């Protein structure tokens, strides 16, 4: 169709021009996000690649942390994050179950939600201080794996609760009704019908929680981490090395040549670890979606 009226033609042109300008702004935004991610990862990879070799993964630091590997830090981070999840998983999931299914007072639920959201917003250094005051000193756990696990566990609790709640609520109400209508109790309905269908969503949340716990420095710097150990932790009350804290230590206290490269190498390992964990979460989610029939 050909528009013959010249005034209308001009208006149409104007509209398309504005649309193009709008799209351009959107594209620029997306591009800058992607670019900064690429630059960040590229920078770490280029700076850290040189440090990576088999020894870096399996050896203890040597010569004032200017040589050798970061094996104890990898182990420490692994133990801290796994422990934190073992702590937060049952607590978080059961809290979510209560919030979605059993709570009778909406007021109470709202209050708890505010509490949980505030917990999520607390700066991580505050968790660290709390851990120092309460766990390390008052409970006399000392600077230890246990203190670090509990602090990180409390810190990832909101993530676990919120994702578990979402997963539980995403199970169709009709399943619940069908179960109750057959004479099942609310508890039977929960563990036979709702939980099995929410489990993949819960796991995704938990794994994302691990990723978060693994990368944190502030919560563990007073509670669990140490600059350097000559042995792996032999009990929950041992101090541990951890990847993020290792980077921090190398960059602040170091004076020897070679430490910088090890710091970047450590950052690269940490980055790969967190990305791998997130990839696992995504894989679980995709698999669950495919298997889902409803």
């Amino acid at each position, binding site marked *: 169709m050909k528009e013959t009226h010249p005034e209308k033609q001009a208006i149409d042109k104007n509209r398309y021009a504005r649309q193009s300008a709008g799209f351009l702004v959107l594209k620029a935004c997306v591009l800058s996000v992607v670019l900064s991610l690429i630059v960040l990862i590229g920078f770490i990879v280029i700076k850290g690649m040189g440090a990576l070799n088999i020894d870096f993964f399996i050896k203890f630091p040597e010569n004032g942390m200017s040589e050798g590997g970061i094996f104890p830090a990898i182990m420490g981070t692994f133990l801290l994050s796994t422990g934190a999840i073992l702590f937060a998983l049952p607590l978080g999931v059961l809290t979510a179950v209560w919030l979605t299914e059993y709570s009778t007072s909406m007021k109470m639920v709202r209050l708890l939600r505010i509490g949980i959201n505030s917990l999520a917003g607390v700066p991580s250094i505050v968790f660290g201080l709390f851990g120092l005051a309460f766990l390390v000193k008052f409970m006399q756990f000392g600077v230890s794996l246990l203190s670090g696990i509990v602090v990180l566990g409390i810190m990832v609790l909101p993530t676990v609760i919120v994702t578990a709640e979402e997963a539980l609520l995403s199970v169709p109400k009709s399943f619940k009704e069908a179960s109750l209508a057959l004479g*099942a109790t609310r508890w039977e309905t929960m563990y036979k019908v709702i939980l099995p269908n929410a489990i993949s969503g819960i796991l995704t949340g938990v794994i994302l929680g691990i990723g978060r716990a693994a990368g944190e420095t502030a919560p563990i710097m007073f509670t669990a981490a140490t600059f350097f150990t000559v042995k792996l932790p032999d009990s929950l009350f041992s101090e541990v090395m951890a990847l993020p804290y290792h980077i921090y230590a190398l960059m602040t206290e170091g004076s020897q040549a070679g430490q910088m490269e090890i710091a970047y190498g450590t950052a690269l390992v940490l980055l790969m670890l967190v990305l791998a964990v997130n990839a696992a979460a995504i894989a679980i989610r995709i698999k669950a979606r495919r298997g889902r029939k409803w």
Partner: protein
Amino acid sequence: MVENTLSIKAVDFNFYYGSHHALKNINLDVMKNKVMAMIGPSGCGKSTFLRSINRMNDLIEGTQAKGALLFGGMDVNEKSVDVTRLRREVGMVFQKPNPFPKSIFENVAYGLRVNRLFNGRDDLNVKVEQSLREAGLWDEVKDNLNKNAYDLSGGQQQRLCIARALVIRPEVILMDEPTASLDPISTAKIEELIQELKKNYTIIIVTHNMQQAARVADNTAFFMLGELVEYGETSKIFTKPDKKITEDYITGRFG
């Protein structure tokens, strides 16, 4: 079979959602081994009444029941009534087929498992098969009992849900627009099935389909705005209703 014995009796039954008065002074008798249909415009309270019988309305916050709703001589809202036992005796089939995302077998077995109503694996198998036969589904699924229930067609899923309700041998089966989401052939199968089932069960069905009520129900109740307008034998309600408004609704003058 016992003729003309009472199954459910409502005496001045009222129901509230918060301040909304959803059911007003309902008085109604449901006879054993009969099919009772409830018809009426959307929001008239027929589903509310249905869900009051097995207390599914408990799931909604801020509801309140007044008056009596008697089943087996007991008021279902009495404190001493164990709601899981009530629901074992009063089964339910929902508007949209809602099988569990489990195998066909496990869907039917669920009620037996939670209520511990079977004696060993053989007994479980026998009871599941029996229910699937009663629901007219056995021949279609007997070779695929381990297949996921969601691989069945909509009509098959609804018959599976009926089998799942039958397996624990309730006295009453509540059906909330059971064919609303089904095609005509599946609907016809379910209607035939209802005729079969009334030999052993009392059936209360909510429907928006006038012809369906006329075809399957012995008695029909017409609800409007929370009130029971008219209740009687289906043939009478559909041919010579006492009230003008009933006639207007049935003949499609409003609704």
